[in-house]
């Protein structure tokens, strides 16, 4: 039993014969009660990892323990301990929201008396009470997502897996969905493992983050720790025409680590931007020099990703070839015919 971790992964590998290496040996731990963000571009291995942790795919090598239970040894017990929100809707459109939840509860062996209160409570907290008696095929995209969340929580799981849960939602829908996640976390004790390729979602919600690319974890840590790796804040100083070169003067300001000049624009790296602003302005006080603008940029995971991979993180279309290979593989995974 690894009771101190909600999820513990050691050297997990998934290979599809003959030579598709979807996940190439990853390790991480998630303490109970945390939100763990698993970030990576399309085709990086996120869904494959989630599928292994949720017993839908068998690992080729390595070990994964979820809720203290080994996924390869006791998959049925793991299934009882976890909730799962898939990328696509899995509700039956011909059934009402409530009926979908009742079927899900039945599949977890709950009696109708046992689940009634729980279903009412979840429908209320997801704002689906009024729509509960309507068939799901008439639901909006956001309502369907909330229903998925409610369905996945019906048996009170210890660990909740969210596999790119906001894919295909508009920005408003995405923001709404995450509001419900935050609310759910206040109401019940559950560890959340979420994958996403939206950087902002991880930045706002996750306690800890791992970045996966090409089947390998390239960075792990808290949001702040990851940002620390790229050298803290960046200050952009735009100077007026005729200003002499300021590189030396700016570099001399205490705590400044690096100064880069791009024409009239200087990029100054330092751990805490606000602390050095006035010193920077003083350093620019030279004959003929003028400042046109100045702003502090907080480090983002976007920059973390850029620093680590040398590639800018694009939300769609990153490395098209791999993404195509991955979706072809997913089609194959669903069986031939």
């Amino acid at each position, binding site marked *: 039993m690894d009771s101190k971790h909600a999820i513990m992964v050691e050297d997990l590998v998934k290979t599809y014969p003959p030579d598709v290496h979807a996940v190439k040996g990853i390790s991480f731990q998630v303490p109970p009660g945390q939100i763990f963000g698993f970030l990576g571009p399309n085709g990086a291995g996120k869904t494959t990892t989630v599928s292994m942790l949720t017993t839908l795919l068998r690992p080729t090598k390595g070990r994964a323990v979820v809720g203290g239970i080994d996924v390869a040894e006791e998959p049925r017990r793991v*299934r009882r301990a976890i909730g*799962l929100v898939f990328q696509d809707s899995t509700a039956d459109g*011909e*059934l009402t929201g409530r009926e979908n939840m009742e079927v899900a509860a039945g599949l*977890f*062996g709950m009696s109708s008396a046992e689940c009634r209160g729980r279903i009412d409570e979840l429908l209320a907290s997801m704002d689906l009470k009024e729509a509960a008696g309507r068939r799901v095929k008439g639901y909006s995209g956001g309502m369907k997502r909330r229903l998925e969340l409610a369905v996945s929580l019906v048996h009170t799981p210890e660990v909740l897996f969210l596999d790119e849960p906001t894919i295909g939602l508009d920005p408003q829908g995405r923001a709404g969905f995450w509001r419900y996640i935050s609310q759910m976390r206040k109401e019940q004790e559950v560890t959340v493992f979420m994958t996403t390729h939206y950087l902002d979602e991880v930045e706002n919600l996750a306690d800890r983050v791992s970045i996966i690319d090409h089947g390998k974890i390239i960075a792990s840590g808290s949001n702040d720790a990851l940002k620390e790796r790229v050298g803290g804040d960046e200050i952009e100083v735009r100077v007026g025409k005729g200003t002499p070169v300021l590189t030396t003067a700016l570099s001399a300001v205490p705590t400044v680590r690096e100064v880069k000049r791009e024409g009239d624009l200087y990029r100054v790296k330092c751990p805490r931007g606000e602390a050095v602003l006035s010193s920077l302005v003083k350093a620019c006080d030279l004959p003929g020099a003028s400042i046109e603008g100045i702003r502090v940029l907080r480090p983002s995971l976007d920059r973390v990703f850029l620093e680590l991979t040398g590639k800018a993180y694009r939300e769609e279309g990153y490395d098209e070839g791999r993404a195509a290979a991955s979706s072809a593989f997913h089609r194959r995974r669903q*069986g031939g015919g």
Partner: protein
Amino acid sequence: MYRELAALLRREYLRWVRAPMWIVAGLMMPILYLALFGQAFDLGKLVPPNPQAQAGLSSALLGAPDYFSYFAVGMVGMVAVTSSLFAGTGVIFDKQLGILQRTISTPARRSVIFASSLIFRGFLVVLPIFIVLGLARLLAFIPGFTGLTVVENVGPAGVLEIVVGILAISMAFTSLFLAFGFLFTRVESYFGVVNLLNLPILFTSNALYPAGTSPLWLQHITAYNPISLAVNVMRENFFGASYYAYPAYVYLGGLLAWAAALILLALALGSRALKTK
């Protein structure tokens, strides 16, 4: 375990009752056959009324008093095939819509998921069969209609043989088409194969016309066709044993072997489709 089964059966049932066209069309087809084709197409009228020719007809119809009675029992075989044609479509749609993935991500046993499909789809086959048989029998009491005339006195053992036979033929074809549902991910592939199979299955049986007219090689195939075995069980009980080489329970045994084999086929393909990879 029964809660999981009940949940899955309830979902199937709710989907079914919410598609009234499915129910109406499914039940109308066999009823129309009985009411139109069965009434209009009377093979007996083509045979001259002299005793020798009538004896030949009786032998061709394996003891049935008229063609409608022969045909009504054959309809059981026909309905077993046509009602089970859709048995695999639910699984395919569940795969496409992600519902199956949701189901297998729960702790419900794979055998329960499989059993729920087999039981519900089997029910959708058994139901119209009993309706057809009941209606055909009812027509015998309505003036102006030809109905199913039962010649023999069918005892409890006979009733049991008939009911088990109906369940077996329903399970056999439900399993066969369910197996294709587990095998394929596209409805097009599924119906391609199903359409290829359903007419040969039906027309190599003695369900709709006497087998005596077909060439010998075809008669051998007909003898082992599960539909032939099922209708033999019923006809022998309804019309007497004099035209049959074996007692009804022998045909029933053959039919049960078919049902078991096809259930195993569906189980093999089903457990492959429901397995984690």
